[in-house]
């Protein structure tokens, strides 16, 4: 099979298009490159969605953690503590088991005249279940970063805003929030890289790959298992990850420049 044919039949294998059977023998370098690259689709999917959704949750958690109201502060603090204190790997297992158990308990919502059974089956599928785990995880870590940034906003800035008669809401949106983002951005870049790396855990922990549609590490370990040769698939996946990590650094660096564009350069 030529490399072109491999690309047409396996490029979207990880999301269910193309050849059904994975190559069984005579693994070429091209096979490995294409299939592992196809698995990267999942890694990018998890990273992009978890990061972009987690961002909003993280901002609300950080604000909750720094608020004076104990009803907001204590749950936010507890959530951050649990997420940051326990391994992501265990979180994956726990959430998967929880999602498996939910349908068994017979989840029904009674609306009085009609009973709706909530469909929970797809929670155990990786595309949703793992996404929820990653979303909660990144929200916890990011909230801590944002909380730290909120604490280090210069007091003078907020006092100045109060002095010119801004409302609390205005102060948050015009002063605290932009400054918080600017201060937290370098650490947030790190968190984004960590989260992207964590996506490699999805199919390796508890979420089973359905019809052999897995992420890049799933295919890499498939090849390593079949060929007993770790020296080809793992460097390939490492190469992919390095490229995407550089891409993240570039994108976040661009945003960082924009956030800091009013600051005098030295």
């Amino acid at each position, binding site marked *: 099979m030529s490399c072109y044919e491999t690309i047409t039949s396996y490029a979207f294998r990880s999301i269910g298009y193309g050849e059904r059977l994975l190559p069984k023998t005579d693994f070429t370098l091209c096979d490995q490159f294409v299939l592992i690259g196809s698995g990267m689709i999942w890694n990018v999917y998890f990273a992009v969605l978890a990061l972009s959704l987690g961002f909003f949750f993280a901002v609300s958690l950080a604000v909750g953690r720094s608020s004076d109201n104990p009803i907001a502060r204590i749950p936010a603090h507890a959530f951050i503590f649990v997420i940051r204190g326990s391994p992501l790997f265990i979180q994956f297992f726990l959430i998967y088991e929880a999602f498996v158990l939910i349908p068994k308990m017979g989840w029904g919502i009674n609306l009085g005249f009609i009973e709706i059974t909530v469909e929970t089956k797809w929670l155990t599928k990786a595309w949703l279940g793992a996404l929820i785990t990653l979303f909660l995880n990144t929200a916890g870590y990011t909230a801590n970063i944002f909380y730290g940034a909120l604490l280090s906003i210069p007091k003078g800035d907020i006092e100045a805003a109060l002095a010119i008669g801004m409302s609390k809401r205005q102060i948050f949106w015009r002063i605290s929030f932009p400054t918080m983002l600017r201060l937290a951005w370098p650490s947030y870049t790190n968190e984004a890289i960590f989260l992207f790396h*964590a996506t490699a*855990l999805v199919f390796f922990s508890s979420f089973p790959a359905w019809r052999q549609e897995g992420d890049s590490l799933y295919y890499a370990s498939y090849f390593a298992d079949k060929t007993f040769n*770790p020296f080809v698939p*793992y460097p390939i996946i490492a190469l992919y990850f*390095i490229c995407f990590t550089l891409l993240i650094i570039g994108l976040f660096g661009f945003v960082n420049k924009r956030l800091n564009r009013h600051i005098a350069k030295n």
Partner: protein
Amino acid sequence: MSFYFSFVVVLSLLALTVPFILLFGFTGALAQRSGFAPIRWFGTIYTSMVRGVPDIIFFLFVPIAMDQGIEIIRHKIKCSDWSEPIRQGNDFVVCTAAKMPLSSSPQWVHETYGFMLATIAFAVVFGAFAANTIHGALAAVPKGQLETGAAFGMSPRQIFRRIHLPQMWVYALPGLSNLWMILIKASPLLFLLGVEDIVYWARELGGSKTARFAYPHGDWRFGYFLFLLVFYLFLTWISEKFFNRIMHRLSRGQNTAAGMS
């Protein structure tokens, strides 16, 4: 019983890897500072490569690579008359005398060997992170302190050992304690390396049906994992307290914000 023992396995892995991590970290950091360019490049490539790739890939790669490397070397030494190639298509074949560990050796040897490979894999990955931290800490020691040492007529070696190294710790500690937290949280990945650790036993004992037994109880895995979660929370919480105390002690009399008070 094995379930409780597996906690010892995890804790001993954590304790055993730390010296190796510091060793790798110092080697990497010193390599990065080396005056000889190839060594410097090696140090830089090592740290930046490990940090750019998910640790899980290294945990999968390093043990197999080490295992095969050792077997090839033993194969070359012990069975020099072996004519067939080692890589036959999709198989990796060495003579029986070169197998590591020997297929005749008892079960605990296999387990210890697997555990050792896991330790090395952890040390390689976290050594790179430690190298970065230590490199930064060495650079953060105020120049004036080193120059004072030179003014007293200390040799470069003496300056390094008596001033640079002791003064470095206060700058390295926040990074290293953070690393320890990450290490704790990476330890359940042992399960993926085939070591029978707490995750393995939680799955094995919690499930109502496993490869070996059918338990009379239902699916208890959720409870077991909840227990593991609490165990890890406790471990990180204790460590945080501990590091805060050390940091407080180390900061005494230092020229940093924490040491001023």
